[in-house]
């Protein structure tokens, strides 16, 4: 299919349909309402389901109910709405149902603002809800990548029977960029008869299925948690995705940055190169699982003096960078939030002053 110019939110809606997701439940919230406004028109064309729920809490359980009976489902929201979904997200992971959540982040905390932000990193990656669980979290840096990640998300969430979140900032949702849509996925969800509560007749079985999360016996519940942990460990082994940039140079500093913020960093790195200063970047495409090893190895490179986490939040991701660098190099944070997007110039200055000070320390 040819190239089209499309707004991120609408492209995400279209990508879902092409991934065979014909069921969408959501509650409006800026800056992602266009996802629903697009799908309310598209779904009837494909005999799909569109429903505006009465609240994010309700929507999150509509998703659970629909996913639990085997449907391919998606919702989209933004930060406060995701907070309200956190109980259900915990339930859905424990009930091992596949589902896709889109979070087009706005600025917090509280009502905050609606401009681009990455302040929901911890909520998405560490678990906003209660209990030991993880979402698989993808962070697109362009509309094209958002489309590809949405289309990957469904089969992956079904493979692991775990919800997947696409974590984008407001720019991803509001920006128009050229998009080429991959071919449709085969629309039949992978066989779910082994667990989905889709009615015994549907699966021509007289064994009933159960989707539940209550396990009163501690031995069973511990085993269940170990089973979930095994899935997360497998994701860490198999699903890590990241993009290295300028990593074969003899870089003096390593930037770790994701989403649209990483595009600003890329520009900064290009400009620094012209100024004769080599800087590299690891751009996590999956925030969970996080590219621990890639970052640690990149940080270990001889030439690299310092690691800088650059994010539109107050160092949430940088904490993970610190963890995986294991003290091999000093780890620093640079960022802004509240809708202020650091410019390439600001990132360049942050890197330079950092290198100066670290040079000072050496003297």
């Amino acid at each position: 299919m040819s190239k089209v110019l499309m707004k991120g939110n609408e492209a995400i809606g279209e990508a879902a349909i092409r991934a065979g997701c014909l069921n969408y439940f959501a509650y409006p919230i800026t800056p992602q309402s266009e996802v629903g406004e697009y799908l309310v028109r598209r779904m009837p064309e494909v005999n799909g389901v569109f429903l505006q729920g009465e609240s994010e809490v309700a929507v999150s359980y509509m998703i659970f109910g629909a996913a639990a009976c085997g449907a391919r489902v998606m919702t989209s929201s933004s930060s406060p709405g995701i907070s309200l979904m956190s109980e259900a997200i915990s339930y859905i992971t424990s009930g091992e149902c596949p589902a896709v959540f889109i979070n087009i982040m706005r600025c917090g905390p509280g009502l905050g603002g609606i401009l681009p932000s990455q302040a929901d990193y911890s909520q998405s990656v560490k678990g906003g809800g209660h209990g030991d669980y993880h979402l698989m979290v993808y962070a697109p840096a362009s509309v094209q990548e958002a489309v590809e990640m949405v289309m990957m998300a469904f089969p992956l969430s079904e493979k692991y029977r775990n919800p997947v979140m696409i974590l984008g900032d407001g720019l991803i949702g509001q920006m128009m960029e050229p998009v080429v849509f991959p071919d449709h996925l085969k629309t039949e969800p992978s066989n779910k008869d082994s667990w989905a509560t889709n009615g015994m007749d549907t699966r021509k079985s007289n064994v009933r299925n159960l989707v539940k999360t209550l396990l009163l016996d501690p031995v069973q519940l511990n085993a269940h948690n170990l089973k979930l942990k095994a899935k997360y460990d497998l994701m860490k082994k198999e699903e890590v995705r990241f993009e290295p940039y300028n990593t074969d140079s003899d870089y003096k500093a390593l930037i770790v940055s994701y989403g649209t913020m990483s595009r600003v960093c890329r520009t900064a790195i290009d400009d620094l190169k012209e100024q004769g200063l080599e800087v590299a970047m690891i751009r996590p495409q999956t925030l969970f699982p996080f590219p621990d090893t890639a970052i640690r190895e990149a940080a270990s490179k001889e030439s690299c003096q310092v690691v800088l986490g650059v994010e539109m939040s107050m160092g949430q991701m940088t904490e993970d960078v610190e963890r995986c660098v294991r003290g091999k190099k000093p780890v620093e944070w640079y960022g802004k939030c509240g809708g202020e997007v650091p410019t390439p110039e600001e990132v360049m200055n942050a890197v330079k002053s950092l290198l100066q000070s670290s040079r000072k320390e050496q003297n």
Partner: protein
Amino acid sequence: MGKTFLKPEALSSQPNHYCPGCTHGVIHRLIAEVIDELGIRGRTVGIGPVGCAVLIYNYFTFDFQEAAHGRAPAMATGIKRVRPDLMVFTYQGDGDLASIGMGEIIHAANRGEKFTTIFVNNAVYGMTGGQMAPTTMPNQRTTTSPYGRDVLDVGMPIKVAELLAALQTPAFITRQAVIKPKYIVKAKKAIKKAFEYQMAAKCYSFVEVISTCPTNWGMTTMESVNWAEEVLLPFYPLGDIKSPESVDGGTDAK
């Protein structure tokens, strides 16, 4: 001319965990009998509450989902929207449905979702040890109204069936009881009617059932059924409150 009586097929043989004399068990059996009679066991999905009936999935022989506290109507909506051919019911207590789940039940009913709700009104939070529910009677003592429900402080009990009947969307809404055989027989008919409306994709259907909680009422079984009959029934009158046939989906009563 005796009659026979057997455990319905839709009911599992597992003994329930309810306290002696708790009528949750009666309601379970009635649902199972109706599902057998309608022959829909193979395409039914039940949705359990968080409450004493949290283990309800153990007592039936068809697909079941377990909801979070109060959210069963949202889950049922999710199922019916993607699989209208499935027969779906939610089973919810009065804390679950009328307190934390008020928003979900009102909107599901108002959208006219084509599922059935069995609403177990026992005027108390059973599972968590007897706290006050929205349905707790004036002056009734509970662990969070130790001196009796003070209506000047926390308001009157909520008549959920009448509240839902005030919505404009057509629905079948009825109140029944399972505290004595004569009520049980009627209750079963009402539950069957509710499922029939769903099978016909006619409307949302809601059956409130007055039930007992001897344990948290601090009464014997017999005291419980009598208290329910003498105190609850006058405040929560039995019978059909709204049906989709009634003019402009308005209420029958009044």
